[in-house]
């Protein structure tokens, strides 16, 4: 190989099941085959990942698309773009317990919900409320660290929580709540159009070395297809990178994420990683109104279709 391009990549969170395709692509040398020398670091939330890429500390990253929207609204000239939409739907969801008799969004009125202020679900609550004819201020929010919201629900100290589907479900389970007792209202199932996490790339990268970004996507896409085909072996790359993780748990997390966020009707027909401009626009509009943003970025400025691999390579074998 003539020369390799260095890419610093930051995840949105720690090494967990859903990071399997990234780590697999790294470990199996898919990135190298594209002439990329990639380093992958764990992250500290989507907002942090966006900031890291925006400041140039990282070239590319994995972050909630809504965080990108919010960032772009405040910094129109940043030129950062999403290049591969991994989570076709937002993983945000409302969790509550059967015993509370909350079965529809309408039942949430007057209840207390716990979530960190930066939680995707909490921030997108206005969209959820609008889609379900609730007043935005019809619930009371309790601000807590991610680490304790499930504890509070498990100990019945709050009525409901919002959180990422695959994280909170597993956390609740680990706190001794059986799956049968949990009521989940995924935002996506209740009319929210928001996209989930995407691979983002800095303006510098996109202008100076678009080929590297495309190569990254190709390598990642290849790994993702393999991950969907065989999650059990994919998750091994996570435990290899971080011996601390519990493989069985991460496998469940991965399959939950794949089943709910990655494999959707849209990706089955359009292929992985892609967005539809119409829904993207709705997604952005929802984000803008939920987050109370002053500008509405155009869909084209935020998602770069040109970096996606061939559609045929992005189709899942059934």
């Amino acid at each position: 190989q003539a020369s390799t391009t260095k890419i610093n990549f930051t995840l949105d969170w720690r090494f967990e099941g859903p990071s399997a395709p990234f780590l697999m692509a790294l470990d199996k040398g898919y990135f190298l085959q594209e002439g990329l020398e990639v380093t992958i670091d764990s992250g500290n939330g989507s907002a942090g990942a966006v900031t890291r890429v925006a400041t140039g500390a990282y070239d590319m990253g994995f972050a909630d698309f809504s965080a990108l929207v919010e960032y772009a609204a405040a910094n129109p000239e940043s030129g950062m773009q999403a290049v591969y939409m991994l989570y076709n739907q937002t993983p945000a969801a409302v969790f509550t317990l059967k015993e509370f008799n909350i079965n529809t969004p309408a039942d949430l009125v007057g209840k207390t919900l716990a979530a960190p202020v930066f939680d995707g679900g909490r921030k997108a609550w206005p969209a959820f409320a609008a889609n379900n004819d609730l007043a935005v201020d019809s619930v009371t929010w309790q601000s807590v660290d991610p680490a304790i919201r499930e504890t509070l629900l498990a100990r019945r100290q709050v009525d409901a929580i919002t959180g990422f589907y695959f994280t909170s479900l597993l956390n609740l389970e680990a706190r001794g709540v059986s799956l049968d007792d949990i009521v989940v209202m995924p935002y996506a199932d209740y009319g929210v159009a928001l996209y989930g996490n995407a691979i983002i790339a800095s303006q510098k990268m996109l202008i100076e070395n678009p080929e590297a970004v495309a190569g990254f996507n190709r390598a990642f896409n290849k790994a993702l297809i393999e991950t969907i085909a065989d999650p059990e072996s994919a998750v091994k790359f996570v435990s290899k990178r971080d011996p601390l993780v519990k493989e069985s748990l991460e496998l469940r997390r991965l399959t939950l994420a794949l089943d709910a966020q990655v494999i959707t009707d849209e990706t089955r027909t359009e292929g992985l990683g892609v967005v539809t401009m119409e829904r993207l626009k709705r997604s952005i509009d929802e984000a803008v109104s939920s987050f109370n943003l002053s500008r509405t970025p155009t869909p084209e400025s935020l998602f770069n279709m040109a970096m996606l691999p061939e559609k045929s390579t992005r189709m899942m074998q059934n």
Partner: protein
Amino acid sequence: MMVFNRRKFLIKHASWMLIVFLLLVWEMICVGFNVPEYLFPAPSSVWASGVDRWQPIMMHAWQTFFTTLVGFAIAVVVGVVLGVAVGTYPIVYKAFYPLLVGFNSIPKVAFVPVLVVWFGIGTVPAILTAFLISFFPVLVNVATGLATLEPELEDVLRSLGASKLDILRKVGLPRALPYFFASLKVAITLAFVGSVISETVASNMGIGYLMMAASSSMDMALVFAGLIVIGIMGVVMYELFAWTEKRFTRWANRGVNNTAI
């Protein structure tokens, strides 16, 4: 005479001038290097944001100030009592000191979830965190102050047949006062850190909450305004201690130029 006065003037106003100078440098760096606002906002935009959100900032600041003071007060009492025990009884020293050091090497933020589960979200965990984080410096300094007491001074009281408690009250504690005041300066800053951290983890109130909320909407200017309000509260408390210290430890600071302390 002229020179003398100018020096005095300098010393008196050094603090303000330095702050203004630093703010200018900060502003210049931000503007000059085009540092993006979401990373490190310039003082001007922090100021604008602070003025803009004056009311909520004050409310949150008041909450933080209150929790910090309560936690700090508990920390001072507990720190002095434990410090006296450690500095006086060898067995307590040997038994507890290593444990306390170990305990204090642990980030207190790890205990916040447990505190929240026991005491609910809000003020109590913040108070307890402020306490847990700030009692240790007081303890260490009081214990050291007592342990380094000159035996000659102790003998003065012992020769009068004074009880251990009397010795503590009449020589031990007065002698340890400079140590104590030094520790207060450290402890109050830690108490602020403790309550803010606890608020970021679980609270709907306080500067910690404000900062989390602001940073979740990427309003870094507001985050920094919060930080600066904390800093100002720290300075206010410090000035209070400095004033008290000046009154109570004049004997220990007699060597220093009057203007110094």
